[in-house]
């Protein structure tokens, strides 16, 4: 450790000079950062040229977000040097970074639900008229235009919190995209977006690049990264492995750099051959469910030992369907039948007691950031391991098993959950339902934000659960996830079931065409 940080090898790692805009707008030299005992970055050199889209990839916990937070002034303390347009800088806060033209959209949504869409877009720099009065008209008009250029038709006066997560993500993006920043950092911006939304985002990104802006694009969707990026950097385990022209890379080579070995069997399904088995016993049926808002006459059947996939674009009612099944939202009409008995859940705990487990798409919603990992895992099974008194030893034991099975990093039971990387948090959210097998497992976007390896792990675990007899419902806006996992597929659109596939060959285009 000390040896590498004291040798000067910077010269050899200078950015490859290419293209018309060759000057680096940003250079990071010998950057290291640790959190307590965890080394998140070790002696990393990293640079971004003017007018390029720079893809950044790496496994969960590789240090991508940490590096970007340093650049964006969120982590003020680090070792190493940072140069903007050749000048050494030291940001003490995100505000400093913004002033220097660096804007970042974080992995976790950071919108303010109680403000309007326009207020969110202009957070902190509202247009004012003489006398410091906010110019609402201009603010709303500009916000409407900006959102429209992302292909959205949202009333800028809508309350942010009333929009689905995907739209919130787009609004948040527009805040930074149109802020005039010359370096724009996007940390997993597409995780909640549908394919058409992603296309529109990419068009905007290319336009910004052609204007001479620089963009860092972090994603676990390697195809997307290779399609949009000019250059790609791979991080592994806190170190930079390589920076290369995107044209010189393939998905396989990127994966190999990410995990440090060959990438056989690391592909998510582009197509699938379904063989649903109607003889398997039915565990749960949803009959003509409507919630009076988003869902209209949705019918579904979940069978023991089978994975049902539901695919649809953002805002098609997937989230509402999951919430309704877990007793969070009330059913207006229609019925829910479990093991032949109609049932109505008064609360989520009633649903849990009936054997239903749910992992929502947004991990913030089911995790306790300031609590240690083991308490996050045990919360859903406390009544199984303890009657009255807590047996913390047992809780830790259980957590350790899950940490090992899911390869959660760092493998510690008592670290505060908020200190894990995004993908590892997602694994913890899954882990809490794995100790006592539920009858029905509802997974909303189970692979969102996970690196290829972690996705493989999740797929393996979900399939193992199926083979042990759990009826699984996977809801996702990612066709690959559905195609890799599902035994039968339902497509939803505008809150209705529009198509079902149970046998034969289907591929991505079938899903996209139906949705």
């Amino acid at each position: 450790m000390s040896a590498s940080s004291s040798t000067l090898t910077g010269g050899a790692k200078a950015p490859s000079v290419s293209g018309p805009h060759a000057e680096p707008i940003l250079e990071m030299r010998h950057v290291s950062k640790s959190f307590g005992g965890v080394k998140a970055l070790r002696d990393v050199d990293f640079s971004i040229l003017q007018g390029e889209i720079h893809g950044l990839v790496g496994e969960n916990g590789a240090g991508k977000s940490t590096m970007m937070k340093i650049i964006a002034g969120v982590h003020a303390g680090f070792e190493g040097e940072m140069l903007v347009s050749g000048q050494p800088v030291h940001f003490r806060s995100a505000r400093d970074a913004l002033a220097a033209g660096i804007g970042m959209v974080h992995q976790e949504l950071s919108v303010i639900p109680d403000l309007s869409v326009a207020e969110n877009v202009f957070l902190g720099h509202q247009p004012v008229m003489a006398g410091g009065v906010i110019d609402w008209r201009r603010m709303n008009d500009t916000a409407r235009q900006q959102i429209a250029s992302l292909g959205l038709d949202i009333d800028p006066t809508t309350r942010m919190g009333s929009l689905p997560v995907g739209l919130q993500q787009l609004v948040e993006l527009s805040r930074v995209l149109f802020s005039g920043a010359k370096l724009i950092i996007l940390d997993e911006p597409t995780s909640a977006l549908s394919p058409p939304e992603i296309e529109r985002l990419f068009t905007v990104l290319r336009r910004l690049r052609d204007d001479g802006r620089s963009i860092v694009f972090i994603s676990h969707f390697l195809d997307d990264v290779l399609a949009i990026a000019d250059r790609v950097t791979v991080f592994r385990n806190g170190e930079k492995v390589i920076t290369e022209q995107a044209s010189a890379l393939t998905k396989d080579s990127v994966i190999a750099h990410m995990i440090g070995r060959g990438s056989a069997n690391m592909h998510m399904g582009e197509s699938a051959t379904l063989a649903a088995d109607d003889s398997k016993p039915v565990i749960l049926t949803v009959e003509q469910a409507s919630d009076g808002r988003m869902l209209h006459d949705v019918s579904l059947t979940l069978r023991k030992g089978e994975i049902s996939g539901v695919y649809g674009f953002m805002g098609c009612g997937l989230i509402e369907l999951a919430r309704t099944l877990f007793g969070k939202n009330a059913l207006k009409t229609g019925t829910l039948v479990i093991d032949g008995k109609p049932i109505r859940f008064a609360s989520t705990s009633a649903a849990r007691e009936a054997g239903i487990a749910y992992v929502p798409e947004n991990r913030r919603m089911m995790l306790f950031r300031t609590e240690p990992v083991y308490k996050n895992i045990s919360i859903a099974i406390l009544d199984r391991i303890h009657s009255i008194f807590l047996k913390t030893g047992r809780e830790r034991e259980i957590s350790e098993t899950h940490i090992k099975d899911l390869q959660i990093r760092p493998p510690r039971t008592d670290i505060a959950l908020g200190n894990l990387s995004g993908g590892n948090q997602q694994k913890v959210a899954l882990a809490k339902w794995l100790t006592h097998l539920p009858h029905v497992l509802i997974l909303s976007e189970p692979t969102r934000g996970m690196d290829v390896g972690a996705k493989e792990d999740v797929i393996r675990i979900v399939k193992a659960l199926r083979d042990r007899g759990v009826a699984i419902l996977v809801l996702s806006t990612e066709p690959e996830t559905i195609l890799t996992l599902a035994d039968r597929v339902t497509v939803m659109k505008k809150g209705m079931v529009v198509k079902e596939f149970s046998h034969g060959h289907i591929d991505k285009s079938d899903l996209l065409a139906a949705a």
Partner: protein
Amino acid sequence: MTLADSTKSQKSSLKQLLSDQMRNIAPIFTLIILVLFFAVQSPVFFSVANLLNILSNASITGIIAVGLTFVILTGEIDLSVAALANAIGITMAFFTIQPDYVNIATIPLPGLICIVLTLASALALGAVTAFGVTKIGIPSFIMTLAMMQIANGVSALLVRGQIAYTFPDLITLLGAGKIFGLRWSIIVCSLLLLFAHLVLTYTRFGRYVFMVGGNREAAEYSGVNVKMIIGAVMIISAMCSGLAGMLGVAYFGSAQQNGFDDFLLTAISAVVVGGTSLFGGRGGIGNTIIGLLVLGVLNNGLDLIQIDSFLKILIRGLILLAALVINVYAQKLKEGGAEG
């Protein structure tokens, strides 16, 4: 790792520890400063009699603060505690034979039955609050404000401006009696604090209380019956207030309208000054004990050094403000430290 590296990481983990523990360290520090200050300023401060005096003055507030700690840990608030204590104290008087010169309509009952009925009244009032907050969905701030008014109404109706002096023997003993020179009320309060601490730290229910306060939505998505937990803490709070009311009237020697007026502010202050997070999920009985001692020492000490009694009110207000600032700041530090 080089030496520079390791001192650096030690430093940062020390900083981390300090920011984590800020809500615990600040109140203890305040307590020590206050004790030293008053010990220097007043020779009687450190006498056994005075220290016992501080404890017995804090004991009734302490009982209320136990219930309030549960409520605040879940991120809710109970503004009805003092009014409820008074109403329950008066209810107990209502069920007890009063001397002839007390002009109050009563339904006298044997001591034990009176106590049971009085506790049942506290339970009933707590259940009403719990129902309003969880089933109807009224914010606890508003619901308990209404309950405060209702309890005041009950008190007013029962005593009609009179004062009651007689209470069941057992209660008189626990509220005003002593054993080996130690007030029973201190013992009751200590036992209750201990019991509540054990419940919060070592039981499943206690864990739920913290988790619901830490992130209510996450608790709900983990299948925790959040409404039941919140209903339960509202009832616990009402029962604690009720007990405090019963012992309190015996402690004062009288039950009357407005008998507990100071207690709302003092009890909330004790919990918050002790460092339990106003947003829920952090803190506990240990914090509340420190908070009670800080307020107890402050009130007692200010009396001893004979300062302007009007200034005293201001000083208490400033201390509470300082505690609130630290409380909110500690929360921010904690959240900032766990940025993901």
